[in-house]
Each structure stands twice: as C-alpha cells, then as structure tokens.
C-alpha cells in the first residue's frame, strides 16, 4: 500500500486514526481515485445540510493498520452539482444516488441517475434530508412507474415477487426474467421500509439516539450500538475502560452466535431439510434465552451505551461448552447429508473479482476469498490468538455456509477467552471526558456486526445533541451482489441464495 501522506491532498489529523481534508467539487474525482488506488475502501458517503451549503463527506478506510481518511466537499446551495465517482467505485455510485434523492443533488456524468430511495409516488422536488423540508407531501405519480429494464425474446417470462412474500422475509420486490427455470436477470427493488431514520436522529440527545441505533436493524442491535457509541465517544473524546471494551466484544460475539445459527438452520430448511432447522431453532431459542439473562433483552438491547457497557451476568464456560456441543451436532447433521451438500455446492457463485468490484463486505466477501474483517482491520480490542479471519474461496452457498460455521466456532473460542480475561479486571472504571474538539470533525465508529462492517459517522451540535448521523449497514453494500450471484441459477434456488447472503432490508432502507 502506498503511503497516504505522499498523496497530493492536504490532510490534517482529526481523530485517533483519522485524517481529514476539504477539497472542491472539481478535484474530488482525482483525490478519491488516488485514495482508492492507495488500497482504501469507500466506507461511507454522507450529506450534511449546513444551511448555506450542502457538505458531502467521503470516508475511506483501510486496515490493518487502521487508517481512515475523510474528504469534505462543500457544495453551494445554489449549485448542487457533484461530479460522480461511478467510474472508479461502484458503491460510490449508489451512495450518490442516495444523495440525489435525499438532498436533491444533481449528479454530473452518472451512468444511472434514477431514483434509489424514494419510490416513484413521491413528488419530484421533495428531499427529506433538507432542513427546509418539514411535512410529508401528498403522494403523486410525477416520476412515472419504476423503470425496469425489459428483457425480451422467445420464451422469456417475467416473475414479480413481493413486497409481501410467501415466506417470512422482510419486504422487498424482486423481479425475475427467466427462460425455463434459469434466471436471466433479477432486479431487487427495495426501500419499502424506509423510515427516515437518519433525519430522525437530528436534534435528539445521545440517549435517544442510542435507542434509535438499537432499532436500525433489530438483529444487529449490538453492532449498530457499538458503532454509534464509538462515534459519539470520538466526538466527545471519551476514553472507555478496558473492561467495558471486553464486555462490548462479548456482546458482539453473542449476537454473531444467535444469528449465524439461525442462518445455518434456515439454509438447511430451504433445501427441504427441516430436521436441521428444528435443531438450529432450538439452539437459537436457547441462545436468545441466554441473551435475556445477559442484558435483560432477548436481542441484547440495552447492553451498550456511549462511554461503556453493562451486563447482568455473563455466560459461563459450561454454557459455552454446551452450545458448542449442540452446534457441532447440528453441523455434522447437515454436512453429512449429501442432498443438502449437493444443493449448496456450486449454487449462486459470487466470484472474487465481482465481489471486489461491488465492494462487498462481511460474510459474503469472506466466502468469495476477500480477507476483510473489521475485527482485524479496525479493532477496538485485541482478540488474541484464537481470532482469525474465516476465509473460503468458492463464493457459492456452501462457502457462505462454511464461513458461518467457522465464525461460530471462532466466536465461541474468543468468548471463552474474553470471559476469563474480564473476570481478572475490576469494575467499569470512571469515564474521562474531554471537551468537544471540533464540531465539524465528528466521530466515526466501525464495528464488525454479524453481517459485516457497520459504519456510523456522527456529528454533534454545539449543545451536545446529534446534528447528523450517517449509518452504513453492510446490507447496503451487499445487496447489488445478490443479482450478480443469481445469474444462471434456477428460480427454486433463489430463496437459498437470498438466505445465504441474509441481508437486512431494514438496515438497507433506513
């Protein structure tokens, strides 16, 4: 990796690992491409309504070693025109479309400048993140209907599915174009559960913000609250005690356990192996019951807060052993079944080059051979020898299944180690707080939730309330990978492929 300090951008240090610079809209393409060429990943793009201008913040990250670089691009409110980064980063092109919908920014040279977040029935000049927008408008159909790309030819059929699905999945509309059983093209149309979460954060105090961040994606309550808390702590200059960091890591791994086991069961269920699903669900219920005893909530809410972490009790080594025993039973049950393995093997392949181009993170990336894990790249705690990045290369459903199995095992080892370690430390220490350094600098929190890297960027107002929170759930980056992986698979494999990614709709739609 090239040294970032050698680049032609005037960077100043704003956080522990963070550099920042202000560039004009004319030089953003050049600066961004130099950072991407230096091996950095575009983690987040957020807009800020500063009144007289709209400021766009690009956050690039890389690691290890943990590096974060921010580019601020102020746009004049009269000329909201932004040159696109679509040619150098695919995820940038989606962030930009989000900006266009929510802030009304005109994208210069964007290959696909159509709506992303707001559905077609919203009025064309209504941008919910602008501060002058106060009331929800009347629904009109100015923007026409959704521009699905037509697929034509003899024997091509179109299958619309959703947003109300036959199974128990969250709302999203999928449209397949098939010949026989083979999928030619699939388009996922989301944002049915868009709740305007980012706007909701504005003006809230920290505690209310924490409540919202726990409900961004119900099954990633810990991941999101850790990222939010870290961002707030960086804003305020809070030092978190070592024991609180360990408790956070424990809760994060507990969340990974109950979600991965559900996915393993659901994958088996989607190929008709209900027995494994029943066993997985009973193990999951056991974990949820344990969670209830750990933080008082079945989904581990209430454990993390800015400045620290709290638990009622921790799992004992014996409980972990029992979970491990039941889990190995479940795994051997499903992997010894040839029918299950036959369906997993070679289904819905996402190859490494596609995954890299799309900027995929988390389980899906590690199953395609990309060794990226935020616990390794942006660690908030040393996890010891037991931790390693679970890596598989095939990119099919089996690889994603195996990554989950490996991560479950690694998490159990980490948990055993951390629980031993925390008992040797005292109570959560005093929290030291410094003055807010610079309001514009904000804070960034990165946590490896069970789906992948969760990034929050927080800015505080002068009175200590939240002025802007930008959230990037891994689902936002991973959704475009699903249609790519689905090419040339058959329609009955769609639920299986979808489950193997298991992306959040609520976290994506925000």
């Amino acid at each position, binding site marked *: 990796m090239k040294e970032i300090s050698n680049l032609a951008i005037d960077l100043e240090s704003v956080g522990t690992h963070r550099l920042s610079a202000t560039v004009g809209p004319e030089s953003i393409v050049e600066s961004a491409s130099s950072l991407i060429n230096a091996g950095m990943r575009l983690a987040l793009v957020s807009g800020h309504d500063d009144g007289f201008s709209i400021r766009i913040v690009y956050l690039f990250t890389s690691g290890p070693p943990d590096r974060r670089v921010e580019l601020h691009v102020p746009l004049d409110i009269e000329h909201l025109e932004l040159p696109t980064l679509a040619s150098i980063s695919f995820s940038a092109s989606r962030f930009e479309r989000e900006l266009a919908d929510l802030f009304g920014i005109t994208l210069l040279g964007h290959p696909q400048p159509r709506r992303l977040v707001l559905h077609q029935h919203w009025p064309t000049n209504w941008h919910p993140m602008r501060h002058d927008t106060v009331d929800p408008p009347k629904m009109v159909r100015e923007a026409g209907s959704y521009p699905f790309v037509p697929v034509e030819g003899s024997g091509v059929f179109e299958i619309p599915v959703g947003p109300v699905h036959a199974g128990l999945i*969250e*709302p999203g509309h999928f449209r397949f174009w098939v010949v026989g059983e083979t999928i030619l093209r699939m388009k996922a149309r989301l944002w049915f559960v*868009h709740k305007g979460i980012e706007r909701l954060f504005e003006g809230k105090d920290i505690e209310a913000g924490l409540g919202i961040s726990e409900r961004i994606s*119900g099954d990633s309550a810990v991941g999101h609250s850790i990222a939010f808390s870290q961002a707030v702590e960086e804003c305020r200059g809070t030092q978190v005690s070592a024991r609180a960091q360990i408790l956070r890591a424990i809760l994060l791994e507990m969340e990974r356990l109950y979600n991965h086991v559900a996915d393993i069961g659901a994958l088996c269920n989607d190929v008709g192996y209900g027995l494994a699903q*029943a066993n997985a669900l*009973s193990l999951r219920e056991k974990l949820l019951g344990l969670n209830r005893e750990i933080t008082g909530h079945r989904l581990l809410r209430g454990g993390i807060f800015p400045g620290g972490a709290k638990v009622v009790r921790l799992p004992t080594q014996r409980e972990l052993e029992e979970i491990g025993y039941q889990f190995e039973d479940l795994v051997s049950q499903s992997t010894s079944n040839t029918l299950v393995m036959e369906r997993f093997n070679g289904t819905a392949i996402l190859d490494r080059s596609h995954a890299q181009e799309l900027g995929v993170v988390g389980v899906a990336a590690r199953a395609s051979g990309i060794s990226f894990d935020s616990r390794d790249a942006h660690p908030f705690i040393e996890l010891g020898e037991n931790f390693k990045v679970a890596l598989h290369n095939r990119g099919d459903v089996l690889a994603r299944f195996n990554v989950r199995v490996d991560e479950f095992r690694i998490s159990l080892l980490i948990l055993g180690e951390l629980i031993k370690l925390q008992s040797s430390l005292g109570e959560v220490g005093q929290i030291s707080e410094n003055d807010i350094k610079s309001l514009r600098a904000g804070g960034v929190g990165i946590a490896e939730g069970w789906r992948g890297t969760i990034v929050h960027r927080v800015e505080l107002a002068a009175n200590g309330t939240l002025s802007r929170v930008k959230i990037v759930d891994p689902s936002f980056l991973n959704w475009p990978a699903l249609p790519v992986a689905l090419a040339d698979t058959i329609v009955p494999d769609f639920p299986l492929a979808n489950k193997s990614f298991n992306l959040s709709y609520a976290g994506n739609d925000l």
Partner: protein
Amino acid sequence: MTNTWILRGIIHRKKTEKRYDSDGLVLTKGITLGLPFVKKQVSSENAIQLVSICPTQALVYENNKLNVYPERCIRCDRCVEDNLSPIVMTNDQPSVRWSNPDNSVLLPHQFRRSIHIRIVDAGDCGGCYNEVRQLNNPFYNMHRFGFFITPTPRNADVLMVVGSGTRQMQYALQATYEAMPTPKIVIAVGTCALSGNMWSKSLTGGTGIKNVIPVDVEVMGSPPTPLTIIQSLFSITGRQMPASIISSKTEPPEMKRD
C-alpha cells in the same frame, strides 16, 4: 449421524414450553416482559421531567395527571432508572387486548380451530419479525395448537402485521388486507404496529397500521415475547379467555411531531 435422530430426540426429551401447570391452570410466566404502571402521582415538575425523557410519548401529562399508555412503551426503562420514580414495571398488566369491545362477543364465534395466518412486515426493524419466526421453533411450536402460517392472503383468516406501516409499504399492506376473505382479523404485533414507536415522528415512518387498515387485536411489547403472540391467537379463538385481555381502553392523545 442422521439416522439416530429419533434416539437423540428421546435422550434430549421434549423442549416444548408447557401451557398448563399441574393444576391445569394457564401458565403466565414469560407471557409479558412487564409494562409500565403509574403507582403514585407526583408533582407537575417531576411529571413533566418524566414525560420529556420518554422517547415514544408513552408517558403523557394531561389534566394534571401523569398517564401511561403501555401500547407505546418500548421498555427502554429510562423512566424507572431512578428508584423514587412513580412508574413501576409490572407483570400483571395485560399485554394483549382487543381494540373493539364488540370483539368479545363476535370473535370467539367466528374462529375456533385451524387458524391460517398471513404475516406482513410493514416497516419492522427485524425485532418483532425475529420473535414471530420463533413461533415455529420446537419451544413454542405453534402448529400443535392448530395455528399455521400460510403463504397467501387468499387463504388467510388472520393478518398479523409487524412494523409501523411505512409510507412505501402502505399500499401493499392495504392490498393484502383486501385480498383476504371475510371474516378476517388483524393482529398488530409490537409497539411500532400499534403507535409507530419512534418512527411516528419521521416524515416517512408511518404512525402505526391502524391508520391503514382496521386493527382487532393489539399485542404490546418491543418486541413482544413469542408466548405473548401465541396468547393473542388464543384470544381470538375463544379457547382461552385469560384475564389479561381487556376490552375497554382510553384513546391516547395524538403523537406530537417535533
């Protein structure tokens, strides 16, 4: 490994939660997570202070009285952190109730056994949906009571809705409701579906599904436990009419936007 599962089933024994204790009484453990209750009135400054920290306007100060509307409570416990707080979380409060008093006469005659349920997510975070998914696990095993999840609204008796009814889901929710044959029942599960939770202050979040379709049964909690959800299904079949289901209530005031 696989062919020994019957044997292992016998070894691990039954996991399913009991419904009745040895005396044949309905078990209520785990039915509710606890709901807020005002045990004593306090001075207006204290009451206004409490109302200001409630993120979902479950606490309301009206007519010189501190009132609590448990259907809006998300159990963040910010109001009970202080030991001197006039609010307590109690388990004897009902978590399931009917929206319409007439239902107590109508419903038990319309539905008896074999209830088919269509579940719609209308803007849920994943929390309530997670608990609804647990209904079919070996612990709760909804099938043993004759409750089934059906893939299509055309076959459904009950529409179970989670989530706040976001603007972009409202049309789909309405269409699902209209596709169902009569008689039909709507169960709103969770604080979001009842009042919009914290999303009701948002421009696109929705203020609960009762503004989109008529709601018959309300299940409180954020999220409610699986046993509470099963309880709500029992209540519409008339097979169990526990004291925790009431039919009278007062309407809370409109949610205020910031």
